[in-house]
Each structure stands twice: as structure tokens, then as C-alpha cells.
């Protein structure tokens, strides 16, 4: 496996999310994908069939943990019960890496269960960096933080998102998951040029890509994970893979989850972009 990032994390190839409707197919057929990603919270509190399946899958594939509830940007205290469960699962499954999103999910103990945007300010940057450092120390491994899809900006913003994320990664010494669809959605929503965004990504910190479908409402796009990856995102992905030299890639599909064959076909669409790299490097 190629390693082109500063963390020495491998290019796992092309993976998909492990979802309940596909459990039986994955366990029985061992389909031809390179790795699986799990939503961390869906496996943290179970000793039942989900855990049995995960353990079986882990015997055959690398597994990455991707959470939605760390709430790194929240001003509520860190949830140590949550973090202990997270660490226990990571250790139990021996995951390739683990991460979450640049966002906050609630405040005052009220969880909105959404990935709310962080205001891109110096103060929020210091706050998030300190929390990432604390969590990384506890977990004993780097966090892989994902750029969000956002649907608004704040009047209080002091810098562009990608500048803020780059500084966060540098100051906290964390890794990045570059969600190419999120770059597209965010840039569409805020009238930005996605290529200008990508030009500022600190590439040596990127260890993973996400690809997903979104809903284009005309006035704005929403990151719905319920459709094929659009052509424009594939084009950006091709550029990103060239720029990174190839990093682990995951197709996210959650809403209107298709039959396995369709999901795998979508994942396989990523392979030609990666084969171009191999041909280039040969």
C-alpha cells in the first residue's frame, strides 16, 4: 500500500459504509471492496448482532471508524463517557484510523444531531485545537477530521473555511478526511470556487476521501448521501487523487440505501481514477 501522508496511514483502496441492510450479504459473500467504514456510534453500545457482524467483517477487511457525535466545536465539556466508549471500540476492532467532523452537534446538553457549522474565528480555532489535542492524547492516535457541508456562514467569521481547517490541522497536528462532495456543496452554497478551495488543502495531512451524492435544490445543495456521485464531484475527485498521490476513498450512501450491487458499482467508479495514478507512477 502507498503511504504519502505524514502520518504513515496507508491507502486502503476503495471502501463503502457498513450498513445494517447489507450485513448478511457482506458476511456471506465477502464482496470485492477494499475496506469498510462504520459510523462509530452505531457500534459503541451494542453487544448484539451488529458487533458480531463487525467482528466478522474486521477479520476480512480493514475498518475505519467515522463518528458523528464528538462535537469537537461545542462549548459543552468533552463527554468522557462517550470518548471512553469510542476508544474501547477502536481498540477492540483494531481500526485503521478514526475521526469525526469539523462541527458541533449541540450545546447545553441539547443534541441537535446535526453537523452544525463552526464560526471560523481565532477563538473557535484555539478552542477546537485544544479539544483535538486532548482527545488525541487520550486516544493515543491522530484524529482524522472531516470538512463539513455547510448551509450558512456567520457574520462573525474571520477567515475562509479551508484556511481555518488548515490551521486547525497544523496546530492540533491532526489528519484530514477531505470530503470532496462536501467541498462541492459548501462552495456551491457560498458562491466559492471549489478549485480555489482545494488549492489550499494541506495535502500531506489528507488520509482519506469521501464521495457522496447530494440534493441540488437550485438555490442550494444539501449533503443527503442518497444518490450517485455527480459528474462535477467525480471530476474534483480525479484532481484530488492526482494531488494526493492516492488516498483511501469511501462512497457514502445512507438515504434510500440501494441494493449491494448498485453500491458496489458506484464504488467501482472510483477505481479508474486510481488506476490512472498507478499507470502514471509505473
Amino acid at each position, binding site marked *: 500500500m502507498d503511504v504519502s501522508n505524514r502520518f504513515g496511514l496507508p491507502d486502503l483502496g476503495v471502501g463503502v459504509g457498513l450498513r445494517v441492510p447489507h450485513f448478511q450479504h457482506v458476511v456471506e459473500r465477502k464482496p470485492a471492496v477494499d475496506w469498510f467504514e462504520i459510523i462509530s456510534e452505531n457500534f459503541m453500545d451494542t*453487544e448484539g448482532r451488529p458487533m458480531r457482524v463487525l467482528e466478522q467483517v474486521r477479520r476480512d477487511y480493514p475498518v475505519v471508524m467515522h463518528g458523528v*457525535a464528538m462535537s469537537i*466545536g461545542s462549548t459543552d465539556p468533552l463527554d468522557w463517557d462517550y470518548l471512553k466508549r469510542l476508544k474501547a471500540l477502536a481498540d477492540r476492532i483494531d481500526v485503521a484510523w478514526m475521526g469525526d467532523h469539523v462541527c458541533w452537534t449541540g450545546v447545553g446538553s441539547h443534541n441537535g444531531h446535526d453537523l452544525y457549522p463552526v464560526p471560523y474565528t481565532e477563538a473557535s480555532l484555539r478552542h477546537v485545537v485544544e479539544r483535538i489535542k486532548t482527545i488525541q492524547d487520550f486516544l493515543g492516535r491522530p484524529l482524522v477530521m472531516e470538512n463539513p457541508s455547510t448551509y450558512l456562514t456567520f457574520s462573525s467569521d474571520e477567515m475562509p473555511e479551508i484556511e481555518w481547517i488548515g490551521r486547525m490541522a497544523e496546530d492540533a497536528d491532526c489528519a484530514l478526511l477531505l470530503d470532496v462532495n462536501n467541498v462541492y456543496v459548501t462552495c456551491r452554497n457560498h458562491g466559492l470556487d471549489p478549485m480555489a478551495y482545494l488549492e489550499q488543502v494541506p495535502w500531506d495531512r489528507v488520509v482519506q476521501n469521501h464521495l457522496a451524492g447530494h440534493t441540488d435544490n437550485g438555490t442550494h445543495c444539501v449533503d443527503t448521501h442518497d444518490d450517485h456521485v455527480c459528474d462535477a464531484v467525480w471530476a474534483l475527485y480525479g484532481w484530488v487523487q492526482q494531488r494526493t498521490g492516492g488516498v483511501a476513498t469511501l462512497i457514502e450512501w445512507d438515504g434510500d440505501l440501494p441494493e449491494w450491487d448498485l453500491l458496489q458499482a458506484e464504488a467501482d467508479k472510483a477505481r479508474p481514477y486510481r488506476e490512472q495514478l498507478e499507470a502514471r507512477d509505473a
Partner: protein
Amino acid sequence: MPEGLRALETWMLRIVTHPGGVDAGFEAAQSEGLLPAGTSSLDDLVPPNDRLSAGEQLHVYAFAYFDRITDVLRGEYPSVELLLGPARFGSLARDFITEQPSRTYTLNRVGVPFSSWLAERAGDDPLLSFAIDLSLVERALDEVWDCKAEAPVAYEALQVIPPDRWDRVRLDTIDALQLFELRHPISAFMNGVMRGDLDGVPEPEPSWVCVYCTLAGRYRIPLSFEQHALLSSLVDGATLGEAIEAAATSEGADVPAMLAGLGGWFRDWTERGLFRAVELLD
């Protein structure tokens, strides 16, 4: 903790989770003193763009808040939704989300209090009264899913126990088992839901149900009064002899039918995997 960030998260969550919508949320945040000094409109907080106003951008999150959690409730309580219809279920879900804001990090537990919340508001509404029973069973189907999957004892292990030792034998039930004594005959209705073939709402009539999960899947089976009494005693730790005696002496028990059925019942329950151990006392 950066106070400005805390304030921003507090007003944003107040606005996007307000049941009356973004404008009502803004008014509430303003009257509660949550907004930065000098704020006179949403535009002061979120810059409008050439396609969406500040309110429309915030509405993306406000819509997602209720929509996401309602979807979770629909997934956990499909029979309740079919009973009440999507409009009434959606309205109830919105009230539930507002009155019971999530305090948990996982969407998997957001719906836990739904049954007790329904019970508080059911009054003498016959549909809601039936919905409570359905919700209890549907909640249990989710809970047993996450219980430890255990290897069952074989029926042969029971067959070798002579009747004169039954008072010294304890059958240890699996954790993934829940028993219910209900006010409505839910089984036919839920079977109809699974078939997509609803046949009206039944009149109130006591019923007994067992919900369990094994490596093979999760199940709901109807019980007789006597079966429920017997299994309940076993779950509570009674010996086999004590459980049989307790069931036989329960008011209204059909003792001859029970004694005639005992062998078949235990064979069925053992083959279903409801017992994880046979313990011979001293």
C-alpha cells in the same frame, strides 16, 4: 471556554430547534437575551447571499432537525405510524422532539422515551392507548437487537431432566428477551403491518408477547397467559418447578391445557434459543 462561541451556539440551536420555525426562534432568542448586543435581524447573524436570505439558510438546519429525528422515530415505530397515519404521527413526533429534546449522543436512543411520553398524553384516546402497546413492543425489538448474542442450550439438555428434579433446575434465559402483558391484541395488527395488509384496529383485549433476538434474527411471538406467567417466573430466577407452580396457580390459568402443552412449549422455546444455560442446583 470562548464566551462568544458559547453564545453563538446557544442562539443558533435555539433558532433551528424552535417548533415555530426560524422567525419564531429568532424572536424567542431575542426575548431571552441570547443574541449579541445590537442584533436587530437575522441578517446581523448570518449574511444573506444572492440566492437565500439568512432565514432560509437557517431553515436548512431547522428543517433537518425535525425531519431527521422524525425519520428515526418512523424507523423505530413503523406500526405506530401506520396506526395513526403519517400526518398525526408527524405531528406527535414534532411535539415529542420539542418536549423531550435529545440529551443523548446517539440517534439510536432518541426514541427511548417515546412510549412513556405517549402514555402521559394518551388520556382516553383509544388509538393512542393502542399505540402505547405497539410502541413498547417495537422499542423492545430495537433493544434486544443490541443485547449480547448468546449460544443457546440444546433441547436435549432439558429432556434428560426427570420431573422430580424440576424444582432443583433453573433455566437461564437470554438477555435478549423481553416479555409483555398488554391491553390490546397487537400481534395480528403487527403481522398485518409486516404484510402491508391492515385489517382495522382491534378492540382492547389482553394479550401477551415475547420479543427476543438470537444470532438468526429478532422475533416477536404471541404467548398465552400461562406461557407468559411461566416465562416471567423463569426470567425472575425461579426454578422450573417454582415457575410451573406459579403459572398454574395464577388466577384464570387453564391448568389442564397448560400441563398438556408444557413439553411442546419448552421444546419450542429451546429451539428458538430463549435459554442460554440449564443450572442444576446442588
